């Protein structure tokens, strides 16, 4: 991985390294599936994750409606919503009930993550890494997008912004619900501060979901994999190429006798800015070695390579 002196943008990311067990390999093999028409797809999310996301969506919608109806109660829409919910009392009860449900869901999510982290030794892929800062594609200066693994940059932003907003909303909401407990440990002004925070965090969450996440999963591309659990190989190639490579590599290694196995998934180089030459022999060779036989190897030129790959995938899928 020595830097090429002729290149002005020589940064080459280290390959992703995974220490996988036989269980991970089996799981990967089970996630690579084929439907009744022979089309390959990947199972990305479990039913539990789908239910969790549905609870999140439902509580987001109900909490948003009941919350903003209280803030903008003087508007026609706000007062109609209040009537719809049978008045402020029942509306508040609905708001609190769904906040509680969301709280349970968040608790489950954290426990589930702790289980993944501690028991299964999986970090989940939601943490930011340096690929996320490679926004050159979005800035229009690169010819190909940055490759992502399990979660794309947009998904990570959605997740962390939502997580931050939900925690802030939960804390400020509880502070408003139990002002006396709060004033026992904090100055009294913490309550109006919580009120301000609650409103602006709700605005933030609404922006994250309705602008950012809606663009990402509905407008840019209709991506319902969180509910169906599944994603086509084409979409995986486009959005989660590294995860696909990992799954294929891990599934290909399932017959290995040497556990735990160190799996290396090479990443594409950072897109060059001033020089066209982008070939990275060691990385591509490394991937060839680790990926399953059915994996189409990367071509030398990224744009052309991807297109060929997509075309061949299309022909496979019919």
């Amino acid at each position, binding site marked *: 991985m020595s830097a090429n002196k002729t290149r002005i943008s020589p940064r080459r990311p280290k390959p992703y390294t995974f220490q996988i067990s036989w269980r991970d390999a089996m799981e990967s093999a089970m996630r690579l599936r084929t439907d009744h028409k022979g089309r390959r797809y990947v199972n990305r999310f479990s039913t539990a994750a789908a239910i969790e996301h549905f609870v999140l969506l439902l509580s987001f919608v109900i909490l948003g409606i009941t919350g903003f109806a209280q803030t903008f109660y003087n508007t026609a829409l706000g*007062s109609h919503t209040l009537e719809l919910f049978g*008045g402020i009392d029942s509306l508040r009860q609905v708001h609190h009930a769904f906040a509680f449900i969301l709280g349970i869901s968040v608790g489950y999510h954290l426990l589930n993550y702790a289980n993944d982290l501690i028991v299964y030794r999986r970090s989940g892929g939601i943490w930011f890494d340096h690929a996320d800062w490679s926004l050159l594609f979005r800035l*229009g200066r690169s010819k190909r997008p940055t490759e992502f693994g399990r979660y794309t940059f947009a998904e990570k932003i959605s997740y962390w912004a939502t997580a931050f907003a939900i925690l802030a909303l939960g804390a400020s909401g509880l502070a408003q619900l139990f002002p006396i407990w709060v*004033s026992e440990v904090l100055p*009294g002004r913490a309550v109006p*501060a919580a009120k*301000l*925070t609650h409103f602006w965090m709700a605005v933030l969450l609404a*922006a994250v979901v309705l602008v950012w996440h809606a663009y990402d999963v509905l407008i840019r591309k209709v991506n319902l994999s969180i509910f169906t659990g599944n994603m086509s190989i084409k979409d995986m190639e486009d959005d989660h190429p590294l995860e696909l490579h990992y799954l294929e590599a891990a599934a290909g290694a399932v017959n290995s006798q040497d556990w735990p196995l160190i799996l290396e998934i090479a990443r594409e180089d950072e897109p060059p800015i001033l020089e066209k030459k982008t070939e990275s022999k060691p990385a591509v060779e490394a991937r060839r070695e680790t990926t399953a036989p059915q994996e189409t190897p990367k071509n030398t030129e990224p744009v052309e390579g991807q297109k060929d790959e997509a075309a061949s995938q299309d022909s496979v899928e019919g």
Partner: protein
Amino acid sequence: MNKRAFPAPWKILSIFTGLMLLAWVNLTLSAGRVQALTPGQAGATPTVTPTAAPPPDEQPITSASPHATGDCFACHSQAGMTGMTKDGDEYSLYFDKFHYQDTLHSNCVFCHVNQKSYPHDSSPTQSCAVCHWEAAGAPAPDGPLTFQLPYEDTRAIALEINASCMRCHGEAFKEIETSVHTRTMSKDNRFAPVCVDCHTPHVIKIINRQYGAQLCSKCHLAQTIAYESSVHGTALKAENNQDVPICDDCHGAHSVIGPRDAAFRLDAFEMCGKCHADENRMRKYNISTDVLSTYLDDFHGRSSDLFGKPGAAKITKAACYDCHGVHNILSPENPESKVAAANLQRTCQECHPDANANFPAAWLGHKRVSIQDEPALFALQLFLILSVSAVVVFFVAYITLDIGRRRAKRKAEAAAAETKSGDGEGKPQ
């Protein structure tokens, strides 16, 4: 036969004249003994004070019979004329003609409907004997003329007369229908106030503010005393300040809402806001008019406002008077005030028994979040607005760039596909 059965007209005339003469003599003699009621106390338990002689205007009946003239004053201007209810209550039937000229009304029988004819409807027959004692074979009356009245008690008289008001003042009656007084009346409390209790009978006048402030004290004495020591009552009493509210400004004149009614609590902020959100009125006293909007922006106010909307079940949130006091409202600068800094925690504890010393600070004291009043909260607000705006700007910019980049990519792919198809490499279906 005919002559015996029907006496000659001269005989009738002479008997009648004789009776009239006797009556005149009797009345003249008894006039010195007649005791007159103090004017203006009609309807109340009469305070009997001896008086020398009736005023010159109240001439006793001279020639024409009251039965014939239909002139109420022919009888009722006699000082000391008294009625007796079935319960034994005395009721003055005397009426000062001078007062009558001052009132807004000018026709007795318009209100006293049952007294239109003479003898009055349903008057017991023994009342006749008061005048016609001789015909009844009774001794000459010794003392004031006391008539038996066909009423249980004096309250029954007030209630009967009160019904007459409706004939002209229907609108006021509509307002009264929902009032707490009418409700009290419907719970068999006959002493709940009716028209004549506030608009005193016979001296009916439009109630002015000074009188109005004391009117309610007839029944609500404790509240009146508390009001008189309040910031409002003091201003009215000391300076005759016309800006301060009197009883009916808050409670309503006819449609008096019960202070424990939901409607009263719900509208409380409008009631106080009527004056306290009025720039012109408050400027004189250097009182902020933000009090209403800041209250409505906060939890208590917003709840009160929202509880007024359909579907509201319970109204438990603090209204203005829960913190500031009901009748004994004092200026917040007054150390005795419920909202003075030293008393605030105790005031909060009325609803939040566990409120600690920090708790009152959760309420901004009708202040807006501004750099002068609340610098810390202002900084937080500014930070939140700026950071959320920055995030939204980032989202929109990123999405815009992404849309542009994807479009460019599609174009490039389409161009490449055309080139390929030109080379004879058709894309397989």
